[in-house]
């Protein structure tokens, strides 16, 4: 069980179950989100958004406890929301307002005095790249601009933690890169802790140091991305020269030795060699089968590999 007094963890969940009617969206989830940027990864329907909504108090868990910044979500929801910024996944705005009024209004709702809220609204809108469009009605904004203004309203009251739910949804490549730069800048240079929920692995890999992988309402893997990418064994790209029948026999031999082979889009295969033997084991097996190795290069595992392994994909 995670310790709520643990000051290094920004968010903690202890055996949390959330049900929508008969459907369990979160199943006995125990997780800990450290400070800095943490990615919340998972396919659609994995329970990422539900977890964020539960942390904000929008949905009440059927069991379990949650803590944000050391505060219990069940007993101190307002204190938590005063220190949290939330960027929802869906298009959201207050109707009938221009951008600066909207963001200033959100600042006031979060407890900032009116003058300060307006001043911060201008600053934050410049920061997210909407400075020139800040007097336009939000309803006339493009999808990318709407994403930016959602980030602005989440930032205006200077939160300690940001919950970003699919922040790059619907953005063009340039806008997406700029959004990721902002997210990265916030966590690396501005000292804002953030949880970035996404199903896009490159987004998480670029902006986050840690990751929590979810699948079907459960935690599939969690930890620093760098350590999760460390394989217990090594992965190689391998190309051999042999006939088809000999190749089958060679692959059989590799599998029998506990190696995992995977075809790729190119003319090489990826081979996972468990243990410490590495390339030496691979060469020995090739020599035993009298197969000529034409190409052998260590392959760096990606977050995609971690994700695929965690959710049980091939």
């Amino acid at each position, binding site marked *: 069980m995670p310790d709520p007094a643990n000051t290094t963890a920004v968010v903690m969940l202890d055996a949390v179950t959330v049900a929508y*009617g008969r459907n369990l969206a979160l199943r006995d989830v125990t997780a800990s989100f450290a400070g800095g940027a943490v990615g919340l990864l998972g396919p659609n329907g994995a329970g990422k958004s539900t977890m964020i909504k539960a942390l904000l108090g929008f949905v009440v868990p059927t069991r379990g406890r949650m803590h944000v910044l050391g505060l219990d979500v069940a007993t101190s929801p307002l204190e938590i929301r005063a220190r949290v910024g939330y960027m929802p996944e869906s298009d959201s*705005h207050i109707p009938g307002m221009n951008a600066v009024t909207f963001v200033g209004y959100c600042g006031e709702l979060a407890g900032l005095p009116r003058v300060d809220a307006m001043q911060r609204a201008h600053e934050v809108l410049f920061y997210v790249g909407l400075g020139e469009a800040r007097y336009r009605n939000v309803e006339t904004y493009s999808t990318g601009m709407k994403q930016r203004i959602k980030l602005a309203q989440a930032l205006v*009251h200077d939160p300690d933690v940001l919950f970003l739910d699919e922040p790059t949804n619907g953005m063009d490549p340039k806008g997406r890169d700029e959004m990721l730069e902002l997210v990265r800048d916030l966590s690396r240079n501005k000292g804002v802790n953030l949880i970035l929920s996404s199903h896009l692995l490159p987004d998480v890999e670029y902006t986050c140091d840690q990751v929590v992988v979810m699948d079907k309402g459960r935690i599939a893997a969690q930890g620093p991305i760098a350590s999760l990418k460390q394989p217990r064994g090594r992965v190689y790209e391998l190309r051999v020269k042999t006939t088809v029948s000999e190749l089958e026999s060679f692959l059989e031999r590799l599998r029998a030795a506990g190696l995992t082979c995977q075809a790729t889009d190119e003319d090489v295969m990826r081979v996972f060699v468990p243990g410490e033997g590495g390339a030496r084991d691979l060469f020995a097996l090739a020599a035993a089968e009298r197969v000529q190795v034409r190409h052998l290069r260590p392959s760096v595992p990606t977050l995609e590999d971690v994700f695929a392994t965690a959710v049980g994909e091939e």
Partner: protein
Amino acid sequence: MPIHDQGYRRYGGTRTPRGQAWIVIAKAGLRTFLSKKAFLGLLLISWFPFFVRAVQVYAAANFPQARQLLAIKPETFRQFLDQQNIWVFFITVYVGAGLIANDRRANALQLYLSKPLTRAEYVFGKLVILATFLLLVTWVPAIVLLILQIMFAGNLTFFKENLFLFPAITLFSFVQALTVSAAMLALSSLSNSSRYVGILYTALIFFTTALWGVLAFALGLQHAEAGAGRPGVSWISPSADLAQVGDAIFRLPLRHDSPLFLSLFMIVLLVVVSGVVLERRVRGVEIVA
């Protein structure tokens, strides 16, 4: 090389105490409507009966010939509030229909409720917007009319003889504003379209009144009067219930055939049902199980 970095800065200023977010919501709503010319026009027109009554008060106070015909009585204030019902209706539809429906359409509820404010604060802030405008066309002109009467008469005789008038105007106006605002907010929370909500409110008012008429006809109660010993069915109509309660507050004979307690009960029921609807509909996330 930028001259000035428009970067993100941490905030080191003060924060307002919690529990005041409803004031922010109410102020923003009031500002939004007061910036609309069409709405200002509506407000101006809604004060037309006040000016007519003001002339009546002036004439009754200054021209003995007119005193017989235009005499100011406690009923005058009740009649004035009755006349304002049409403006109460228009302002309720204009202001109230979109108060929550527009937020639902723009997915704004999750933004509001991700800030440090409760659902009750959100609803109260919205209710204050509508109730303020309703009081602006009922309570404010009625009280100003009372003050004008004192000024034009040059004495406190009428006021002293009818001391109950000030609390009566206040109580009735607030009961009306609360009931109408709560009902409209509940309807507004049921849809994402303010137009649909407006139609729904109009239908509710006209349908209940029509149903009352049909039932009264079918049961042979259409000419029943209060105290006739035959309880009527006017309690079906919220407008009739408010009129009944208003008459009681102004110490006037009840105009409809339903018992006062039943009208009062229906008003309380309407407010309670509205509260239940709002409790279920105003949420950060809509769960379709």
